[in-house]
């Protein structure tokens, strides 16, 4: 583990303290630009923004408990064609970082000249829930953090978050460590790469003592244990719901083929989805032939095939961010099903998506002695 430093929280205001941190990163020439969520003037939501100068940092709020998009997609968009020679800081949640690592392996993003800043994540609300809370009164971020501090279990968080067993960033240069901290007083800045250590040096912060690090570790393992338990319960229940062709068909029956799930998935990286291709444009005779053969066919066709195909392609890299489920207009538990299958597949290959750049994608490697028994 790299160096740990203490960031004192001024006047008990964590957001302001962090805001100063971002500005300092600009000042110390650690970054030339910053990708960070900022609050809308209305306060009812946050959006991801790319900020070119410290003066434009109006209302950055990476702690807002909401995840409108998985920003791995945005980083991919920014870096795939050609990375910038300038240094861009990107503030990401753990699931965003993990998705980004997967995209890098898939050559859809580059980490060149990026400063990866990861944030401990206590979970997020759906956009609707967040706006509702924001409109109801006090700022949701403060309330949420207060709840966290009190150890309140929040069942209105997104299901994916409640069952996420990776609440801390992996592969970040710098981690904003909140877990186990009294974040009215101080938080932990953790450097987990040489780049991160250079940043800490530039920031001239004092080193933390071991108790604080231990406190964070302790809080993390508690949270992971609690979430893993929840995850297993959820997946067990999902398995019951989805098991067998009949259940599968029933579960996906409300699918209207909108493909929102594909659009918001950070890992669905195809330029043009196979299912949008002319392969699926058929002559009327074809449909009638099927109808004749089977009596009735569900229209639009191929909705289940679409999900199964997407699962086939994405399950191994699925980070469980839950964006797909959020985007489904008909509340199909897409994410739960993907996680159920994904986890099983990932276990076969001892693969954790986003854990390490060194870990090769199982689909891209051949090992003679694996999968001796199939089925």
């Amino acid at each position, binding site marked *: 583990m790299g160096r740990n430093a203490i960031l004192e929280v001024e006047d008990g205001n964590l957001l302001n303290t962090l805001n100063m941190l971002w500005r300092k990163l600009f000042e110390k020439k650690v970054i030339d630009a910053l990708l960070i969520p900022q609050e809308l003037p209305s306060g009812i939501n946050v959006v991801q923004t790319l900020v070119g100068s410290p003066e434009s940092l109006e209302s950055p709020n990476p702690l807002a408990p909401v995840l409108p998009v998985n920003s791995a997609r945005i980083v991919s968009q920014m870096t795939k*064609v050609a990375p910038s020679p300038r240094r861009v800081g990107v503030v990401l949640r753990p699931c965003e970082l993990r998705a980004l690592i997967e995209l890098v392996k*898939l*050559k*859809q993003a580059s980490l060149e000249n990026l400063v990866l800043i990861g944030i401990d994540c206590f979970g997020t609300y759906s956009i609707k829930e967040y706006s509702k809370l924001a409109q109801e009164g006090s700022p949701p971020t403060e309330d949420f953090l207060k709840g966290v501090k009190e150890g309140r279990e929040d069942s209105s968080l997104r299901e994916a978050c409640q069952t996420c067993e990776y609440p801390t960033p992996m592969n970040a240069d710098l981690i904003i460590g909140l877990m186990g901290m009294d974040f009215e007083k101080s938080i932990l800045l953790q450097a987990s790469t040489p780049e991160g250590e250079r940043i800490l040096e530039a920031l001239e912060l004092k080193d933390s003592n071991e108790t604080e690090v231990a406190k964070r570790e302790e809080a993390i393992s508690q949270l992971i244990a609690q979430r893993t338990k929840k995850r297993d319960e959820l997946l067990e229940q999902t398995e019951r719901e989805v098991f067998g062709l009949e259940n599968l068909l029933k579960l996906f029956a409300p699918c209207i083929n909108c493909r929102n799930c594909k659009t918001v998935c950070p890992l669905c*990286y*195809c*330029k*043009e*989805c*196979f299912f949008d*291709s002319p*392969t699926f444009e058929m002559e009327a005779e074809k449909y009638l*032939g*099927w109808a004749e053969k089977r009596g009735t066919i569900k229209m639009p066709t191929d909705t289940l095939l679409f999900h199964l195909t997407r699962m086939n*392609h994405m399950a191994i890299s699925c980070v469980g961010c839950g964006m797909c489920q959020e985007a489904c207009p008909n509340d199909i538990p897409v994410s739960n099903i993907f996680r159920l299958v994904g986890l099983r597949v990932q276990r076969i290959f001892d693969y954790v998506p986003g854990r390490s750049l060194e870990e090769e*994608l199982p*689909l*891209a*490697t*051949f090992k*003679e002695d694996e999968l001796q028994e199939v089925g």
Partner: protein
Amino acid sequence: MVGAVLVIGAGIGGIKCSLDLAESGFKVYLSDRSPNIGGTLAQLDKWFPDNHCGMCKILPIFSRDESSQFCLRRGLFHPNIEILPLSTVEKVEGEAGDFLVTLSVKPRGVTEEKCIGCDLCAQVCPVEVESEFNEGLVSRKAIYLRHPLAMPNSYTIDWDSCTKCGDCVERCPTAAIDLSQEEEIRSLEVGAIVLATGFEEFRPQPLTQYGYKRYPNVVTSIELERMLSASGPFRGRLVRPSDGEAPRSMAFLQCVGSRDRERDYCSSACCMYALKEAMLAKEKNPELDVHIFFMDLRAFGKGYHRYYEKAKDDLGIKFTRCRIPQIKQEPKTKDLLLTAKAEDGGLTRHQFELVVLSVGQTPPPHFPELSKVLGLDLNRWGFCKINEFSPAETSREGIYVCGSASAPKDIADTLVEASAAACQASILLSSQRNRLVGTKIYPEEVDVREQEARVAVFLCRCGEEIAAAVNMQEMIELARGLPSVLYVEEIPYLCLKDAVADMKERIKDEKANRVVLAACSAFPYERLFIEAIRDVGLNPSLLQLVDLREQLSWIHRDRQQAATEKGKSLLTIAIEKLRSQEPLPLLCQGVERQGLVIGGGLAGLIAALSLAEQGFEAHLVERAADLGGNLRDIYATLERGDPQALLKGLIKKVEENPLIYLHKETEVIEASGYAGNFEAILKDKNSMLHPIKVGAIIIATGGEQYQPTEYRYGESEGIITQRELEGRLASGELDSKELRSVVMIQCVGSREKERPYCSRVCCSQALKNSLNLKEKNPEVDIFILYRDMMSYGFKEEHYTEARERGVIFINYEVDHKPEVKTNGEALQVQVIDPVLGGTLKIEPDLVVLSPAIIPNDNRKLAQMLNLELNEEGFFKEAEVKFRPVDFLKEGVFLCGLAHSPREITETIAQAQAAAQRAASLLARERLESGRVVSEVNERRCSGCELCISVCPYDARVKDEEKGVVAVIEALCQGCGACAAVCPNDAAKLRGFTDRQVFSMVDAAV
């Protein structure tokens, strides 16, 4: 000069040699005495050191549509190879370049073109004899197929046991059997002959002490091979012959028929195959107690030591160093009793339920006669005599040899020699390349792209074979009702000549532009049918075969209704696929017809010369100022050859050859491209850059001697390496007369944790130097401290000679290494004496270490060309056995110490092999792809490179400018891995469009 070669012996060596020659533009006649090709290998299922089959890997990669695409066990097809089964050489007249060979061809009694392999003849044959394929463990009939899927796939009459009762003639549905067939005489004009006659396994009956054939549970290793095989007498169940029970314990006795007075040579392969068989037996029953009794465990090949360690450490196979003098049988249980010497010198008794004799290799019985016909000299054990520095050459010019015909050896070494022999023949005949081979000219293809699909369907009844298994009428009616089908016909035997001719007429009459043949297994007949469809001007991709034999009649014989349903489904699928099938062209790519050889040591010199002598220009790049590499320090060989004279001669030849561009003090700093089209940049000593374009690259970057850190090397003048000893003896610096006593220590740095491989050459080096010392000073005491003496093949006689001359061999175990102590000038060596027990102290004048051979730093070159290195840093070949000098990256070849440690003779063979492989690429004006190759939809490609990482043939590269992937069609083998891994169909396989596949799925369900 005649551009044709006769290869005698169609085992794996003969097959490989034929393919290499055929691929590089020569006509090949492949002759074998037996009715089928395959030799000993046909009897074996899996090979060391990976326990898989992999014969198919020797099949050609380029122009694959013209040659075999199937399992090599099932078929060998190449337009330039004519197979002559049942033939023996009777007479050879003429001389190198112009031989006239007379062959006698024994009658098969069955017309190959008519035999449909239905087995009815064998069913009625009343004669039962021992099956030689299954080593007599079961019987066969007098009319028989040697083994399932034999090639040629035709029955044969065994005239020795046939009673000519005629039952089979009557039963044969195609009138294929002719008992009056007579021997035929054939004359062939060939420029060269290759001897690939292999070996005969030693028959252990004369060694009565082992009780073979008297004790039922004593079997030979080849019998065990059959017993372990799924196609064997017990369907792969390991049982003991006496009672059919699974044995709980078994023992292997090594060196049966090898390393004895009569056959003072090592058979080289037995240690390894015993390890393999032991592992396969353990696989069948992990509880089985397996014991191997050996004298020296000779795991000297690449990757073999690791294999040995796996057997020992992971699988718990037990090893005892002891030659078992005798086997006794417990009469009641038929268990076997043997007595072995224990570690402590005492005797231990063992009881086993099965004993396997690891039998060695001997020359085949007909070999003396054949060598007389060919006019070849044999060595004292009856193997073909060769030249140490030109191992493919026999005593007669124009006749070459490979494999076990010249010395016992394993498959890997045989295949290297097969290519080396092909190389020598190609050099001799290079002026005649491509003269006798040519492709058939077909009528111009009809352009069917704008035409509506008109499908003709032919269903073969195969007599009653298929017709009885399915309801043909139902199939026909179904086909008639399917869209685009305009013609359906049922034919009794589609494979017969007349039927094919009729079919062609019908296709023309009906103006069909797509053809479905619902008939036979693809492997024997697809070529015949493709030829037919090309004859009528159709592109071969417009033909679809439905296999009603292997998919139906062989497996669902008793369920006619279900079989018919399946048949209908298969037929519908084929027709659906064909309806939207586009004609697929062959794609071509040019070839830069010169080679690059990297490294100017022995391997590089031979490789460059072998290319030049075949008529190809070659760039030879050497880092140092002088050519020769390690060979410069070798002054003698164990076989008493003169390496310095060899080197001098080679350098002269290389320097004088106008086709060789010699680049000394030069390095390859950049290399890129692919087979046929590489670009490299050479940097000379003045830092000048020279870009070159070549079609093939041979890597011969060599290796070096390990600098010992063990045994106080460097601490005393008296502790030196074998090479230093050799140099000092050669220069006269060291006077052997003054030596009283010398200790040699083997395996210094080899077969250790850091280097788990045998360096192969050091035992010979120690033997050579001790014999040299003994010759000069018979009084000198020499002690060789060894772990396993690797005097494989005919090196064994020098081991014997050394013992006879009084060299003392002391075995040590890796856990109890000798100790070297220095006290000023004085040296002392301590070693545990396994025979006497206790520690032996020797005070020698010299301690001579035999250090490992290690690779040079190959990482840069490997990275440049995208080649793999193994864990020890040697280059990793495509496949250790079947593609020993190829890389997975096509167009790059490997030889010499960069591959693994090896002797001079072996290096020469390997360098010639590498040159031959390169030549078979350079011999083409262009590379032709197959028809089914992959392509890229650039609009959809996200450039994720998954397809690049899964492509086993390096046929996909990233176009960095466009950010998408591109296909090198000539390298693509159409396996479809890219299409499977691509998430959105940007990677596609021609002939398998999504539309086609979807409609096929639709048709199936």
